[in-house]
Every structure is written in structure tokens, then in C-alpha cells.
């Protein structure tokens, strides 16, 4: 009796597993398909795409569309390619990610290790920033940037993204530091370390996993942002996403789909790179602090 049951259990197990793998495979194909379309079409001459057969592998392999998208495609009125906008994005993303991460870490440190009256309310208010939709602040933010003389500059965009990102980074670091042993802070205090010395020497070196989470999250969000870039950037501070839109939306001439595909991949590559380099810390960091011990 028991042997028979075991037998069926194994057989259903096998059937189920095959089914599960089939379904998973289907999902993989479904998710990979857009990437496949983008990659194959970005290395084809334009005639192969307009002649139909978007799904076919390229008959003639060419990197011409990539080169054109990067350095000579018509963006708006100038034939500059995406490269200057790529650097605009970098100049905006790097400081914005760095500043918002450090500020989040400082906030988390204060909210957990230097507790004060009503600190949970302060934390709640900071957290509130995570839930405010972008559209609501567009006009007030434009006014503020104007008043500060930052309208249309990269630093204006950095400020906007820092303000928006601090809510998230504070949340990450607060939860991470909440389970960081307070005795360590006390030991450092007795050893004579001050507020910032404890932060730099004791806390930050132990914050690797959560810093990675914060950096990936912030980098992806800020790099991919379109609304703030389109709203607040000047002609010489437009980020990659806005430029890509201008490239694809150009209303004159032939639609160079292969160049558009190459440009879109170029715009997506940096976030992909960050995931590949730091991704394995991501899940670990997200889980950290959720379970004690």
C-alpha cells in the first residue's frame, strides 16, 4: 500500500516537474522576446526591417546603426547622436545616487542610534515621500528650481532626484541599522569616537549589502526617469531618456528603426551593467534586517 503510494508520488512528481519547466520556459521566451527583437534588428540594415521579417536573424551583420545612434543621429535639431546626452545622464545620476545614499545612511543612523522624541513621526514623514506621485510636485518644483537659480541645469535635476530618493534610501538604511547592535555604538562612544567618526569608521564599513540595494534602486530609477528630465532639463542638460524620445519621435525623414533599437539598448545598458555587477548583493540586502539573527 505504502509502496504503491510512493510510486504514484514519484510519477506525479515527474509529470508535474516537466509541466513546471515547460511553463517556466514559456515565461523565459516571453520575457526574452523583446530583447531578441531589439538586438537582432539593431544589427540589420534598414532595408531588411522595412522589407518585413522583424523576427528573422540578420542576413547582413552591421554595427552601423549602433555607431549612428551613438554619434551622428539627428536628436532634435542637432546631428550629435546620443553620446552627449549619455554623459549628461552620467553627470546627473552619479552625484544624485551618491548624495541620496549618503543622506539616507545618515538619516538611518540618526533615526536608530541617536533617537529623539517623536523620531518615529519624523521617520513616517520621510517615508511619506515614497508615496507622493511625481506629477503633483512638477509645478511647485519648477518654481523652486527657478527661485534657486537651478532651472534647466544638471544640478537642478540632481537636487530633484536627491529629494525624491531620500525617502527610499532612509527607509532602507533605517531598517538595516535597526538591527545593528547598539552596544557597538556605545563601545565606540566610550572609546571616544564622535558622531561622524562612529558613522564613517564603524557603521558605514558594515553597510555594504544595504548600500548596494540603495545604489541599484536609485541608479535604476534616476537613469530611467523621463518626466523630471523632460520637465526640468535645459537644452544642454537633457538626460539620455529624453534624447532617446527625441530620436524616436523625430517627425521628419525616414524612420530608422535599426538606429532606434540600437539607441534604446544603449540607454538601457548602464542599468543592466549595475545589476550584473552588484545584483547578487541586491536580494541579500533586501532580505537583510527582515529576519533577526
Amino acid at each position, binding site marked *: 500500500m505504502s509502496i504503491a503510494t510512493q510510486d504514484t508520488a514519484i510519477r506525479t512528481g515527474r509529470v508535474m516537474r516537466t509541466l513546471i519547466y515547460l511553463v517556466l520556459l514559456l515565461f523565459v521566451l516571453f520575457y526574452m522576446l523583446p530583447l531578441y527583437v531589439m538586438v537582432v534588428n539593431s544589427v540589420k540594415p534598414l532595408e531588411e526591417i522595412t522589407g518585413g521579417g522583424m523576427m528573422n536573424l540578420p542576413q547582413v551583420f552591421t554595427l552601423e546603426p549602433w555607431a549612428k545612434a551613438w554619434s551622428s543621429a539627428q536628436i532634435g535639431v542637432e546631428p550629435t547622436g546620443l553620446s552627449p546626452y549619455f554623459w549628461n545622464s552620467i553627470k546627473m545620476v552619479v552625484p544624485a545616487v551618491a548624495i541620496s545614499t549618503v543622506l539616507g545612511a545618515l538619516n538611518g543612523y540618526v533615526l536608530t542610534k541617536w533617537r529623539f522624541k517623536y523620531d518615529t513621526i519624523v521617520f513616517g514623514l520621510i517615508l511619506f515621500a515614497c508615496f507622493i506621485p511625481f506629477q503633483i510636485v512638477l509645478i511647485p518644483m519648477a518654481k523652486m528650481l527657478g527661485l534657486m537659480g537651478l532651472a534647466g541645469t544638471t544640478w537642478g535635476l540632481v537636487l530633484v532626484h536627491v529629494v525624491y530618493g531620500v525617502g527610499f534610501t532612509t527607509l532602507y538604511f533605517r531598517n538595516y541599522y535597526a538591527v545593528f547592535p547598539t552596544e557597538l555604538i*556605545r563601545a565606540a*562612544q*566610550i572609546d571616544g569616537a564622535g558622531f561622524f*567618526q562612529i558613522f564613517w569608521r*564603524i557603521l558605514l*564599513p558594515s553597510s555594504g549589502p544595504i548600500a548596494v540595494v540603495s545604489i541599484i534602486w536609485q541608479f535604476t530609477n534616476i537613469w530611467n526617469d523621463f518626466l523630471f528630465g523632460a520637465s526640468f532639463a535645459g537644452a544642454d542638460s537633457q538626460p539620455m531618456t529624453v534624447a532617446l524620445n527625441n530620436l524616436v519621435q523625430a517627425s521628419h525623414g525616414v524612420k530608422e528603426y535599426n538606429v532606434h533599437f540600437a539607441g534604446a539598448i544603449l540607454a538601457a545598458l548602464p542599468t543592466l551593467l549595475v545589476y550584473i555587477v552588484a545584483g547578487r548583493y541586491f536580494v541579500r540586502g533586501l532580505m537583510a534586517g527582515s529576519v533577526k539573527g
Partner: protein
Amino acid sequence: MGFLDIDNTTKSYGAVEVLHKVDISVQEGEFLVLVGPSGCGKSTLLNMIAGLEEITSGEIRIKDNVMNGVHPSKRNIAMVFQSYALYPNMTVGQNITFGLEMHGTPKPERDKAMKDVAQLLQIEPLLDRKPGALSGGQRQRVAMGRALVRNPDVFLFDEPLSNLDAKLRVDMRTEIKKLHQKLGTTIVYVTHDQIEAMTLSTRIAVMNGGYVQQLGTPQEIYDTPANIFVATFMGSPAMNVVPAKVALENGRPVAQVSLFDGSTVALPFSQNNMSDWAGKDILLGIRPETITDEDAADRKSSNIAHMTNRIVVTEPAGSDTFVTMTLGGKDVIARMRSDADVHPGADFMFAVNMEKAVAFDPKTENRIAP
């Protein structure tokens, strides 16, 4: 004037007073242990000496300097924490010298101090390792090294052995005692373990409910406990406390205690002032090791009483055998030699060393002083 004075110190959180007027003066080179059950305020008091908790009222002085409001790092104290609190990102060497570095000591001096301490604690081979790669006992040593290197006026230990396994705990206890004898430093040590308190201290403060119940040498605490709390908290197994009635026999005060069958036995007091309590109820405190068989009774004692009582349970523990009986309606434990001829259910003649017995007032629970 002591080396470390805790002068009428209280601590309140809002309206709740958790420490009530603590008054302790510690001399230089003393080893003071604060002992009590969890929540008695002993760690709070230690943190107040360290400067990690504010003092609500009263004063704490080290070498006659008032410490109220002085930053922890400027009190010239060092603390060993329960969790060791080693900095996980630094090597053992960096952990030990971090405090010196923060106080601006030049590197050559730091290295020399580190070497001396490492030699003293025999942790030289560990200096380049991270705390994560150390065993519990090694971490404990490093934590002590970090405290020693600063050469502080007062060492504060916050339950430093409670994270170690039983055997290591006993070893480290001896190490700490050796270290204290060798260096002659002033130590305040918090523990909930009464054996640690007895073995390590030169003086003990037994605390409960935010009050210092008794302050004295280990012997004083053990032999003349101030009240029933101290009597039963210190010592293992705990002191037996049984209801008794004081009577006079031939002009001598005796404690009448009921045996297993309801008959009473008269145990004569050594303290003559117990005559004043004649006719009144008291609580009689008898340590387990003062109830023995006739042969093991203390020969130096001038007051051995005898009683025949029925044995309920025997618990052989190797070195001793614990015998449970009913006395005054309570379970009473006697600590017998392991070869004593005791059997459950049998009647046995016990010898009670009444010189060591203490009496408590049942109303106040305080000891009736001789």
C-alpha cells in the same frame, strides 16, 4: 570619600523611578559586583557610571571629580559588554587600539600598548584576524584587551561571561580574578549569577526592584543576609526559609518547627536576643549545607541541634547528595556527603548547625539582628 562614589543616585524614566537613592562608595582596587535578577536596575546603574545613561538626581564621582554630564570618553573608564561589541570591520589589533587612536595617541605608543596587552592576555597570534574569525573565549579576551589598553581608572563589566558556555565561563571567571589580583584595578561588575558574584568580588551589592538590598563582603552577604530576598537569592541551592515559633526552654530561646508528622522539634538559638521574640512567629533561615548527618556536623560549632525527620527525595549529585524533607510545612533541602546513608521514605537523624541559622521578621522580611 572613595575612589568611585555613587552618592544618593536615582534614575527615572518619566514618572517611573527605576533606581532609588543608591549610595555606594568603592575604594581603589576594589572589585564590586552588582548582582540581582533581571530588571533590578544593575545594568542601568552601570550605564550611569559609564555615562551612557543620564543621572536623574544625585552624584557620581570618580577620584572626587563629579561625573554628571561628562561624556563617556572623558571619564577615563573602560567597559566590557555582554556581546563583546567588537567592531566587525576592524582587525583585533585595530579593535584594541581604536580608543587610543580616538584620543590622539601617536602610533608608536599605540603599537607598544597593543603588544603589552596582547602579551598579557595571550592573544598575540590573533592580532591580524577579524572578530568574526574568533571563538567566544577569544572574543572575550579581545574585549578585555580593548578595555585594558586604555589603562582606565575604573573597569566596568556588563555580564561579560553570560554568552560563554559553562566550562569556558568558569575558566574566564578565574582569568578575570587573576587579572584583578595582578593589576589591582578598580572594577564594577554586573551579573545575575550569584556564584560569579561570590567568587569574584571583594564586595557585593545585591539589588532588587531598584533598591540596593544589601552591600557587603561575600561572607557577610552569605552568612548574615539583610532580608529574605538576599538570603534566598545568594547561594545554591537557596537558603531554606521555614515558619517557626519562638519559645523559651530553660530560659533559652528555641525555634519550634513542625516535622513531617505534625510533631514539633525545638531548635535552640545561638542568638540570646531571640528571647525578646518568645511566643511570636518568625521565619527561620537554614542553609542546606548546615543540615547534615551527625558525622559531618561542624565540629567547631557550639550549637548542633538534632531532629529526626522523614526523607522525601534524595538527589545524588556526585560530590554531594541533596536530601529533601518536609519542615514547617515546606520542602527543605539538606546538603549531605555523597556517602551518607540516606534513602527516600526512611526516617533519619539530621544534625543542624544552629550557629549559622538566621531569623527573619515575617512582617518586614528583614533579618532579626543579634
